[in-house]
């Protein structure tokens, strides 16, 4: 189901920027930093907390800026982070 609405002629409806909720599976993280580095909106930071393996998992700094692009999910080597669109459940 498309989340974005095309901009209709005569200004009838405005396109909406999608928004994603981030789920971090902290215990899987090996602290590579790929998601933090390459999030286009710099939503994530390297948190100060430790997981059981001794790595610093990512933390969410600016959750409202996540646009559900899915880059963090795809670049994570550990399958430790993903996003979803709350209204539709779409996971990119």
């Amino acid at each position, binding site marked *: 189901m498309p989340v974005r609405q095309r901009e209709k002629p005569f200004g009838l409806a405005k396109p909406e920027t999608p928004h994603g909720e981030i789920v971090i599976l902290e215990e899987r993280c090996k602290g590579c930093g790929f998601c933090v580095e390459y999030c286009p909106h710099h939503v994530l930071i390297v948190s100060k907390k430790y997981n059981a393996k001794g790595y610093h998992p990512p933390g969410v700094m600016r959750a409202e800026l996540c646009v559900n692009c899915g880059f963090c999910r795809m670049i994570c080597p550990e399958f430790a982070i993903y996003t979803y669109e*709350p209204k539709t459940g779409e996971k990119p």
Partner: protein
Amino acid sequence: MSVLNELEKASLSPSAGQTGPEKHPMDDFMRMDRMPHIWCSTCGIGVSVNCFAKALEKCGTPLDEVVVVSGIGCTGRVAGYVKVDSFHTTHGRAIPFATGLKLANPKLKVIVFSGDGDLVAIGGNHFLNAARRNIDLTVICLNNSNYAMTGGQLASTTPKGSVLTTSPFGSFEEPFNLPFLAESVGAVYVARWTSLHIYNQTNSMVEAIKKPGFKFIEILAPCPTIYERQQKFGDGLDRLRWYCDNSDIRNGANTKDVDIRLNERVIVGTFVDTERPTYLESMNAQYKEKLGDRYKPYEG
């Protein structure tokens, strides 16, 4: 909507990224009972497996028909982690094993996922001949420029001048130019991407899996614990930053020009995308011509 139900049960607050239910969308694809995998932090292999999972989802191929064959090495461990029929064979011989699988049951989608040393050094002969024959295989070659599993020895894809345990004073051998090699022996699809180019990787894998014939995708991956450490380069993230600044996407480039030199820019892209009859198509055509109606086309 079941996702929302699950999340409601976990009472996730929408404004903060808390740990949700311990399930990732790609978990059905992985052998979760074997996780965490053995690959190092900032290694590029996990990224490619993630892209591969996405590519299979995009292709829509039923996972029961997919078979992954790998050889020995760090990348060779991929077969053990993906939840499809998978075979972890001997060093260098993933391609002939996959050939036997594919020819015995042509309905299978056979993917060879292995490392650079495994595929083109010890397995070089098989690589050349399977490409020449155009056996219907997708070969994903993860090139981390060394033999990582055994501690970082010189490989046939190591850029000249690299310091590795069997070239402690810097290597003086010219490495393979893998896309050039693959094109020259007849691969119908040749692409190279880095671990950073995740969308391109995924799309290449989708294109390759859907196409008949021998397809070759080279992925330049960081090897933090072994290669990057021995070059005193940093970790995998430093290498990804280097790829970001030093890679050029040139689709359709002449594969002669895409060789890799130490500390020089790398060229990535989809270089070759042609058509040619596959081994079984050629076989059926030949026998039909020579034997006429007595011959029933081979279907497995």
